[in-house]
């Protein structure tokens, strides 16, 4: 369970290329291997295919019930509607406001939580004070606590503080629940740096903040990329906190999406639903495909957060 075995080495081993039984030429079993993998790949791709083709069909064509068929007539109408005019509960402004909210929440939430976690990890690696380990143990324990156990006390506390249902509220909540895994990530990264680096800086008379800003932050770029991927996808995909803590004004896209689909009045516009789903998935998917191997590292390290 340590990030040692999970994060960087895990990913680099994945990239190191296959090992194990050497393949002979194209044999019966080789064909079997590819058949299995291709079938598995089809299973994984099928929902994406269905989403895309459904979102490009007009409602009459959907009524024909050929869920896997490429549209006879491509229309982008559902996409426009999902973005601009679909109803989420009472409002009918499409996903647009939710998208902007999600962008704001993700940008600010990611930045704040990573700055804090980086500082935490640095302090815990080089400036351990008495009781720091206990605090850290408690924090890591927090990574495994079901959200439902602490959510009500947090609602009460946020109400008292006047940040329940506000933008700062949702940022604080993401910072809190991102902290265990992010701090762990940064702590293990800093702890693995050569100690000479720190010693030399100390000899030169650098203090807590100088070492942090001038040495550690520039060193921490690779792990920060992993952390950014982890937080961006995590915060963007969040649903529970958005529902409970964000408030109507800051409702993120996932919550809006769920409302669009579950609006019970009128005809269910499956094409609009699927277009909305793709729009909501677009950002994490883009992060996934652009970041490639970094994403694998991020999830290997951060799947704990779930």
């Amino acid at each position, binding site marked *: 369970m*340590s990030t*040692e*075995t*999970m994060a960087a080495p*895990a990913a680099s*081993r*994945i990239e190191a290329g*296959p*090992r*194990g*039984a050497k*393949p002979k030429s194209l044999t019966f079993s080789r064909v079997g291997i590819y058949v299995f993998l291709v079938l*598995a*790949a089809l299973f994984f*791709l099928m*929902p*994406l295919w269905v989403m895309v083709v459904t979102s490009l069909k007009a409602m009459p064509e959907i009524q024909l*019930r050929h*869920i896997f068929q490429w549209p006879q007539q491509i229309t982008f109408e559902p996409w426009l509607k999902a973005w601009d005019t679909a109803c989420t509960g009472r409002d009918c402004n499409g996903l647009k406001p939710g998208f902007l909210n999600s962008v704001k929440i993700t940008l600010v939430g990611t930045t704040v939580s990573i700055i*804090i976690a980086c500082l*935490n990890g640095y*302090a*815990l690696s080089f400036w*351990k004070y008495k009781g*720091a380990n206990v*605090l850290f143990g*408690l*924090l*890591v*324990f927090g990574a*495994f*606590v*079901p*959200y*439902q*156990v*602490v959510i*009500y006390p947090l609602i009460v506390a946020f109400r008292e503080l006047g940040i329940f249902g506000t933008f700062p509220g949702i940022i604080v909540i993401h*910072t809190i629940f991102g902290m265990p895994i992010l701090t762990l990530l940064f702590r293990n990264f800093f*702890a693995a740096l050569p100690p000479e680096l720190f*010693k030399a800086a100390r000899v030169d008379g650098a*203090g*807590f903040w100088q070492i942090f800003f001038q040495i550690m932050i520039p060193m921490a770029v690779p792990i920060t990329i992993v952390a950014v991927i982890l937080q961006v996808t995590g915060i*963007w*995909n969040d*649903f*529970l906190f958005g529902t409970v803590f964000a408030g109507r004004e800051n409702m993120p896209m*996932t919550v809006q*999406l*769920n409302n669009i689909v579950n609006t019970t009045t009128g005809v269910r516009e499956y094409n609009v639903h*699927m277009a909305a*789903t793709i729009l*909501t*998935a677009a950002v*994490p998917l883009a992060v996934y495909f652009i970041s490639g191997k970094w*994403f694998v590292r991020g*999830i*290997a390290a951060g*799947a*704990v957060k779930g």
Partner: protein
Amino acid sequence: MAQLATAKEDGVAGRPAAGSSGRKPFRLTTLMSIIGTAPLIVTAVGVFFICIIYSFVLSFTNSRIFPAFGAENFVGGEQYARLWSTGRWLISVNNIWFFGLLSIAANMIAGYLLAVFMDQRIKAEDWFRSIFLYPFAMSLVITGLVWRWILDPNYGIQATVRGLGFTDFAFAPLVSADTAIYGLVVAGIWNGVGVTMAIMLAGLRGVDAEIWKAAKIDGIPTWRTYLFIVLPMMKGALLTAFILQCVGVVRVYDLIVAMTQGGPGIATQMPAIFVIQHITDRSNVGLGMAAATMMLLPVILLLGLQVFVQWRANRVKESA
């Protein structure tokens, strides 16, 4: 997760950590360190300690919408007694066990199978890995919505196969109380098996190449090597994948809300939904907190187990 906390202990111990010994005089840098980690302190103590205690205490009160701590509000174990006689909760507990066992087993088996097949020096490994992993980038809300659409009896797989002429074909897991949970399992696996595969593939490739040579010389068939020699050697990866999934199962919420909303009826209720409903719509915080405390129980047991395994492993290492 003691392992998590102590993972890097060796690396840190020999470090010139000022103020770490406690015997040294209190330095300015220690103060800076405490200031720097103030959010950590607040979160660790305030959220993961005080909030849990607070929830626990509330579970012994008859709080409705707001927390009530008056002497007359303390009702002892009444909420727990009530919880365990509430049909909705009993179904939730049954469901989480069933869903958990089924989805974890399926996920581990499918993940290992995929990892083994991916390990056969195949072409386009990157492509396959990308395809198996991409669902994990999407939220469970999206996963739930997509699979709900595919499993919709009037439009999805059932309708398509019927359209091909098999008019008796029935495949509509989500509309029946008996089968809805299988639909959730399929969607959950679609979302998460790629991660399991990635972890297990890393584990597979961490096994010493010599083992493979030795097995080959002994003439052991490849499949037996994978099953009986390599699999037991990758305990770390297996445990990682297993714990990740346990945590995910206990928390499962988004998927259910998006896919079945707990239905049909209350057939796919889960503890996480039970808690949220009782602190919001149903305004019965006392009962909700009793349920939340029960949710914490398996997590603590799991962590305890992990600490125990770790402790024993350390002892074996020391005595060796």
